[in-house]
């Protein structure tokens, strides 16, 4: 059934799949599935292609595509449900990129998006009419109303961005530094909409509806109201995996409690929600939010009580504090391995940060809910906005202060999939030994730990022996890395801190690189690293022609140099030519055609991802 669910979900298996019928000279008809979102150099929007017209003949086809409108070409009338005619400028979504980095192509493929297009004003035309769903349109209008209220009454970009993320999960205006600080201190879960938000709404609705009498029709009404609010909120926030998990679970709990008068087994509810969501979208299994959400809930269900029972406190407030600590500790037990696998760091101060941020964020969230409810009363909204702003500033200050402490985070923790599995095995065995008093589990855990240590040592030794030449995939940038063991030398353009963090650091983590500076030979644009020779030809530099043919292994072309492949063959004797991501796509295509005609090996970094050569 799992296989069938995935087969049915995969758009490529459907009749009329866009990729199977797409013609080069076609005109496509598309409908926008969301309002356009502003990016640094463009407007991004997800659309669904409905039909294509080739030489005047129209045929139905379907497929989701990402459209990037140039900033000067965007029409302000574009909105959810707008119909467009566009020339076929579709290209495959960009390749995986650099080793260890986020695989955007795979992420898009999991969402059934395989094509994207950069559009200028001459490439598309807005058609009359709107094909959007009225319910979805109403929910999007509610979202825009909430956003405009928060932008008006919560002043300051930082506070406003965080308020939007906290209430409806809108992260477009959230500053990256803030997200990093919340990640480093282990409280990023409060700005990702999850069970906490839906739980607060569910409890609030139960409290608000408690005055209603206990009758069958009243119970039906209660459930209907609760489900409408919960699912409406889930769709407004973008229906991420963690939100859907909570929504399905609360739906089951509400139906069990009010309609069937049954108390459900929470493990069954958890498994049933996962089962339903995986039937709806089997690729949720690879979603980090889905994995962390389920693991955190399972971890709390399994370990909260035993941890809480370890220490009995008499004072009510210290007991409450211990409860919060126990929940945080329990949630971490099963989420640590996945966090290490994806984020390669451990927030050492997660306990302290959670103690501060969770109560504060709960209060802020209630403030924001009241702000939306009293949106029409300027006096109340003004004061509420100020209170929310102050609350956010205090929370940001506390999180930022914790983040600045020197021991706040342990990073460079690289783990592969096998190590993660073993870590789960180890956690499970220790849990069985500790809680169920099974001695055999202790011996198994020692065995698992030994295997884990051996695997880690093996990986470390392999990292110390590696020698690599890497050409990074960085848009409009040239960067080459020479790797010798755990040391590396970067050669190329100067990068921003953001590029270093999001593009270079994952590669360093993947290959376990620690120190800079590597011994290599360089003469002008010629580089020799052990036995490999590389010639770097940059469009911004000028070169003198050599009188005789030079031998090299690879030629790297960057920043659109005015050379043809035939000229290169006259000057150099080489085995392959590499085009990095600083070149224009058209020029790369031209060079690739030349290479094909001359039967030469070529490698296009923007299309195939980073070039990695094992020496």
């Amino acid at each position, binding site marked *: 059934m799992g296989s069938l*669910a*995935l087969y049915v979900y995969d758009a490529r298996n459907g009749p009329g799949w866009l990729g199977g019928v797409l013609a080069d000279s076609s005109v496509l008809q598309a409908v926008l599935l969301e309002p356009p979102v502003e990016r640094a150099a463009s407007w991004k929007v997800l659309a669904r292609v409905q039909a294509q017209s080739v030489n005047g003949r129209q045929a139905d086809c379907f497929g989701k595509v990402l459209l990037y409108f140039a900033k000067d070409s965007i029409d302000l009338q574009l909105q959810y449900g707008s119909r467009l005619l566009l020339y076929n400028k579709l290209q495959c979504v960009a390749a995986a990129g650099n080793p260890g980095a986020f695989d955007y192509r795979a992420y898009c493929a999991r969402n059934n998006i395989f094509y994207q297009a950069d559009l200028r004003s001459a490439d598309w035309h807005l058609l009359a009419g709107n094909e959007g769903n009225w319910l979805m349109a109403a929910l999007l209008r509610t979202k825009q109303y909430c956003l405009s209220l928060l932008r008006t009454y919560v002043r300051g970009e930082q506070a406003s961005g965080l308020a939007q993320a906290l209430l409806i999960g809108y992260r477009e205006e959230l500053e990256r530094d803030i997200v990093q600080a919340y990640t480093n201190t282990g409280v990023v879960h409060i700005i990702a909409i999850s069970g906490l938000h839906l739980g607060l709404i569910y409890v609030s609705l139960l409290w608000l509806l408690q005055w209603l009498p206990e009758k069958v029709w009243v119970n039906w009404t209660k459930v209907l109201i609760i489900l409408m609010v919960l699912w409406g909120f889930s769709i407004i926030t973008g229906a991420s995996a963690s939100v859907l998990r909570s929504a399905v679970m609360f739906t089951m709990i509400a139906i069990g409690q009010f309609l069937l008068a049954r108390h459900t087994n929470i493990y069954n509810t958890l498994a049933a929600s996962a089962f339903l969501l995986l039937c709806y979208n089997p690729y949720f299994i690879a979603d980090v939010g889905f994995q962390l959400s389920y693991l955190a809930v399972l971890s709390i269900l399994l370990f909260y*009580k035993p941890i809480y029972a370890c220490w009995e406190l008499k004072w009510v407030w210290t007991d409450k504090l211990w409860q919060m600590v126990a929940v945080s500790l329990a949630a971490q037990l099963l989420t640590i391995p996945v966090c290490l696998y994806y984020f390669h760091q451990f927030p050492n101060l997660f306990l302290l940060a959670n103690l501060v941020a969770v109560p504060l964020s709960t209060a802020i969230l209630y403030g924001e809910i009241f702000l939306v409810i009293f949106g029409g009363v300027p006096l109340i909204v003004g004061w509420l906005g100020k209170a929310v702003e102050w609350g956010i500033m205090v929370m940001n200050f506390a999180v930022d202060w914790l983040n600045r402490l020197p021991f706040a985070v342990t990073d460079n923790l690289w783990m592969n999939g096998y190590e993660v599995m073993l870590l789960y095995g180890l956690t499970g065995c220790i849990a069985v030994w500790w809680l169920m008093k099974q001695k055999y589990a202790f011996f198994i855990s020692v065995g698992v730990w030994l295997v884990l240590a051996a695997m880690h040592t093996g990986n470390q030794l392999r990292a110390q022996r590696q020698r690599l030449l890497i050409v990074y995939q960085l848009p409009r940038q040239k960067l080459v890395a020479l790797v010798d063991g755990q040391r590396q030398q970067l050669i190329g353009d100067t990068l921003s801190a953001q590029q270093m963090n999001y593009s270079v650091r994952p590669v360093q983590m993947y290959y376990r690189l620690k120190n800079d500076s590597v011994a290599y030979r360089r003469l002008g644009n010629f580089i020799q690293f052990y036995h490999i020779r590389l010639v770097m030809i940059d469009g911004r530099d000028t070169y003198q022609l050599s009188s005789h043919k030079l031998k090299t292994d690879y030629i790297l072309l960057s920043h659109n140099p005015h050379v043809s492949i035939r000229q290169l063959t006259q000057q150099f004797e080489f085995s392959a030519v590499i085009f990095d991501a600083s070149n224009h796509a058209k020029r790369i295509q031209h060079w690739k055609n030349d290479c094909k005609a001359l039967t030469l090996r070529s490698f296009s970094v923007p299309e195939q991802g980073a070039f990695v050569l094992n020496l």
Partner: protein
Amino acid sequence: MNPFPNFILIKKSGMFVTQFKRAPFVRLLPPLVAGILLQHYLHFTLLPLFGCMVLATVLLISMQFWGKRLVFVLKWGRGVLVFFLR
């Protein structure tokens, strides 16, 4: 005190088997995940998929009726293999 009140421990042939009380979806989830992973890595087309489903159904039904006999045959098969390989 049992730290996991939702678990039942069953001692079965020297090994502890942990089961959840009244939780059918807990048992349904692992095969679903296994199916998704299989399809993700092996990319079955529709025909083998239906073939596998029919085969699995037939196997499950026959296991209900012929389970004990199947175990008997497997044990004998293993005995014969061990005899010849030794």
